[in-house]
């Protein structure tokens, strides 16, 4: 048995209490932990907290040149946002985008995970093949899908013309009610692979005996899905939904590459509008205010979703 010196034993005991959450603030354990925590806390403060604080400051101080105080000061930038019809349109479209991303990327990921898990052979191949789009950058995805959606030379309209289905050919990126849907498909195509992998991992964690029992009880595929698979994936679903919501809120690159918010603002999201305000129009104050609104939206959605999940549980 190793005998620790008194001081080392005290440190060890202190550390144990700290880990157990019983250490007193300012205690020896905390003092020992501080040097280890400092680098991470410092980096977090520098790259996360400081920019957040600066954005908050800009949102209440910067004018439309980003240089001086906002005319009227204080909440002027928020008031200007509230009176801006493009902001409201972008807000509505962001919500639609979010829902579409959740349905397309999350839904497709779930469906493919189920399909691949049921395969006897080729599981690894399909898993890799379907994950592949996720390693392509969103900007490249935007370029590829712009070509696919080209109304004259694109793959989709080309196939429709070849099949004699001319009436179904569309201006995928020009029709106001289609454009958000079309870009979202491109964006979800890039994203679903990750969700699929998470669902596959979740499926592997479900006790196989539950499936055997369901089979013995004569449960149909739908009943098995409803009473075994979905309850078994509840935690993963929550995680995927949270991830999809946050990724959806960050939707920017594909839209920027494909339409830059057009036609006539019909694919404008809060993120693209932030970029335009900040870097095209140099209206840093309003852009910062919009960043704050977007962050609050993300927090509200995440908190709301998690509360709902707790209640359901």
């Amino acid at each position, binding site marked *: 048995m190793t005998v620790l010196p008194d001081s080392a034993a005290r440190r060890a005991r202190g550390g144990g209490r700290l880990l157990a959450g019983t250490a007193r603030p300012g205690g020896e354990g905390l003092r020992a932990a501080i040097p280890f925590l400092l680098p991470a806390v410092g980096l977090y403060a520098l790259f996360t907290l400081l920019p957040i604080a600066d954005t908050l400051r800009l949102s209440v101080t910067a004018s439309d*040149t*980003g*240089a001086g105080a906002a005319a009227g000061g204080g909440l002027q930038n928020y008031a200007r946002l509230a009176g801006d019809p493009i902001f409201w349109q972008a807000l509505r479209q962001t919500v639609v985008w979010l829902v579409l991303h959740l349905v397309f990327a999350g839904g497709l990921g779930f469906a493919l995970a189920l399909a691949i898990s049921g395969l006897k052979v080729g599981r690894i191949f399909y898993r890799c093949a379907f994950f592949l789009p996720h390693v392509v950058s969103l900007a490249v995805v935007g370029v590829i899908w*712009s070509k696919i*959606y*080209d*109304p*004259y*030379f694109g793959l989709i309209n080309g196939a429709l013309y070849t099949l004699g289905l001319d009436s179904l050919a*569309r*201006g*995928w*990126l*020009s*029709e*106001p009610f289609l454009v958000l849907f079309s870009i979202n498909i491109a964006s979800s195509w890039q994203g679903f692979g990750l969700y699929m992998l998470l669902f596959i991992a979740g499926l592997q964690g479900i006790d196989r005996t539950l499936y055997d029992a369901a089979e013995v009880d004569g449960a149909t595929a739908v009943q098995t899905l409803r009473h075994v698979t979905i309850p078994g994936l509840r935690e993963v679903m929550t995680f995927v939904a949270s991830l999809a919501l946050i990724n959806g809120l960050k939707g920017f690159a594909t839209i920027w590459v*494909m*339409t*830059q*918010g*057009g*036609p*006539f*603002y*019909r694919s404008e999201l809060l993120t693209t509008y932030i*970029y*335009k305000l*900040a*870097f*095209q*129009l*140099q*209206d840093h104050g309003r852009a910062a205010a919009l960043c704050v609104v977007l962050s609050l939206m993300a927090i509200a959605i995440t908190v709301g979703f998690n509360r709902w999940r707790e209640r359901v549980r």
Partner: protein
Amino acid sequence: MLRRLGLGLAVAAAGIAAGFAPAKAEILKIWGPEQITDPVIADLWNGLKADFEKANPGVTVEFMVPTGTISNGAVQAAIQSDAGPDLVLTNSGVGRVGIVAKAGLVVPLTRYYDERGWKAQLYPWLYDTLKGQFGGEIYEIPDGLDVIGVFYHKDMFAEHGWTMPDSYEGFLKLLGEIKQAGIQPLTVGPRNNANGGHLFGNLLQVSAGRQVVGEVLSGKRPWTDPAMVKGAQRLVDLVAADYVQPQMVGLDLDAAARLWFTKRAAMMVAGPWFTNNARKAGFDMANAGYATMPSDIAGESLATGGVGWSWMLPKTSRHPDLALKWLDYILSDAVMTRRASHQSSWMVYPRALSGLKPTQPVLASVFAAADKGVGYNPSVYMPGNVLEAYMQVIQGLIGGQIGAEAGMAQIDGQMQQAAK
């Protein structure tokens, strides 16, 4: 003996060090030129870079591949990034330059126009235009001028017996005949904005005339002026007649050009840079024709344009003196003539260059159009916040989401806000 030899070597080494010590290493980072990744263009610019470096020992010139323009915020983001360029070459015009000048991202160059003799190296009218833009301050050195007109296929026109008419009515008749022949009359790519502005600018010019457009851009007349609304209505009418198709809103410049290069479309409104797009697409421009859009107003069948590309000095430039030296070099006769004679050349340069033959036959028509005078391409003359609305309205007019009067009223609203 050895000691003497050592001493001699040390003296020689010191002499060599003193005589041949390289100057302090400096890297001049230049944003641009556009399409520097194109081997033909890289050939020209790498040659210019090598000669500049040779004349300035210790200096290395680095070209940054532009990720965008002032219009999409890429230049502003680069300048503010702390790792940005020492000098910028990008799409310009008073609207775009105004964005970076107003934000204090570029420094005034006015005094260098006299100090370094740049004033004498531009067309006098061009210098006067620059001087009148920002209360006498100049923030740019024009690198090239844009001359936007209608490109068409000469062989296609000859085959069908079509000629470019001299009135707008005649132009509409021609579009109808082209449509009847089963060819798309006009192609446009407004998805990434610029090309929608080229077509719309031409329509405004032939409908309202240079003076009216100029007065609208300077705020002396509203965008809802009947002559301007007429231009917007003409775009709506072109779409209604299917001479411009609404799904073209989903096309960018390259996709629209592809319709023209494959001869599925008869005409496209573009500038001299279009010959470079054609070269990259492997399209032979030998049969390309260029004309200004016909107008019913006498003398108003003019190309549109103005300053298309400019050099600007970011306030964050680490080597402003070196940047000024590069600008002297670029404006020199030797460099400008070398650029104009190079196979990649398509530009209308900011001063007359005598004795030069256009590198492509169609450019002779472009230069001739420039000699007639150039109307305004509003895209490059309007403030940044108006520009975004302008481009979206053009998309809305083509896509049928907004009418001519409402569209112009929307632009006017932004213009009034910008004037406050």
